[in-house]
């Protein structure tokens, strides 16, 4: 699996959790917060993505992650 494929999975779950987002305009260099996601939305997106990837990344490792791209890179470290 590539980082780009993980980004697409994150964007899919972002679309599922935010009412008014145009997913085509989402940049991986941005934060989910830039698109109106609150902390609960982000927890849901992160959890759903990990569930789909069948990985569990400690939340403590995600505390400093700022962008969707960085989140995907972190997940990629855990994908077999």
């Amino acid at each position, binding site marked *: 699996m590539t980082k780009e494929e993980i980004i697409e999975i994150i964007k899919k779950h972002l679309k599922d959790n935010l009412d008014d987002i145009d997913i085509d305009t989402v940049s991986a260099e941005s934060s989910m917060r830039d698109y109106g996601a609150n902390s609960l939305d982000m927890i849901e997106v992160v959890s759903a993505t990990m569930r789909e990837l069948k990985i569990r990344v*400690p939340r403590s490792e995600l505390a400093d992650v700022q962008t969707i791209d960085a989140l995907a890179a972190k997940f990629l470290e855990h994908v077999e």
Partner: protein
Amino acid sequence: MKPEDVLKFSLADFTYNDSDGVLNPPEDFDAWIQDPRVAMAMSFFEQPLHNSPKPRTELSGGHLGKRRPVINLTSYNYLGLSTHPEVVQAAAQALMHYGVGASGAAMLSGTFDQHVLLAQELAAFKGQDACMLFSSGYGGNLGAIQGLLQKGDVLVVDSKCHRSVVDGATLSGAKMVSFAHNDAASLDETLTRYAGKRRMVVVEGVYSMDGDVANLPALLDVCDAHDVPLYLDEAHSSLVYGETGRGLGEHFGVEDRIGVHFGTLSKAFGGVGGFVCGEASIMRYLKCYAASFQFSCALPPAIVAAMRKSLEVATRDNTLREQLWANVRHFRSNLIAMGLDIGESTSQVIPIIVGSSGEQLIELAMAAQERGLYLQPIDFPAVEAHSRRFRISVSAQLSAEDIDEASNIIEDVIARPLGLVGAA
């Protein structure tokens, strides 16, 4: 899960279950929670008290696993009303008259004369038309917010609001968005973003993990500019703040600008339950749509009678509040003199912020237990990972000797290991 990884994880990491069946916890959750280091950390929760929630009480379980005397710095019994002789007597008399439970939901057979009287007295206390009672504080926020909002609405909450507010929004179907803690500019930006929607803002009077207070005047200015009502949760500020104890709204002189007044009976009142006060029409409406009100058994009449007495005792004069604030000043000055980080706290809730190490937090908690100090560690995800802490709830019942003895223990088991004594 590899043993060396175990402390990287927290309860937040298991909020979704990836096992095959819903009755099976995640496989790695079992491995995690049974690890001796995690089990040690979990031993701090649900330790049974064997006496009243007074400053000197008895506890068992925990890291030591044995019954022992402790100085209790954890209870919400801010004014000592839970054990006040007049309050206890009122409960005892009502218990003999009404029995143990209400045996019915409030809308069916669970409303007693005591419920009607307490609701009237609370409404008068808050200067509002009407009041409705809930069987718990959590259920009160859940029900009031769920009853007021619906799908398509937007609930705008301070980022440090309590879980019951969040759950109320979820249950209502409304979209919940947060603004930066106590930041009027952030609130303004958020309300602007959702202009045109039915919106309500929720803030708390005193924030339970930090002990700081809402900047009500500035936040209300923003709400008024957008013509959006503010719902104020006075769980930790009722009977504590204000000239007559009406709360933070009274403290700032802005009560008439608040749309919904929410409070709990389980903190300074010393009992259990929640209440919401406002205009009569919205209270009538809310009673018909707040599910946690309609489908919960009403509060036990004996508790309600005791809460009437708590209100009377706490408002007949300022004796208890003055004692509480004297204790807060005394304890704060001791903690600050040690160089401890108490964040932005200005209230009776005082955090001791330790930092990012969960292992260190538990080590310090164990040392406190061994010295007879009941002081709960607050770990991630209840607070952010970089600000793990202890939380002190100051009570009017603490004597000066209690505070100084507790402070000496804190100095020995927390301030010294952190290398902070006298750093301020």
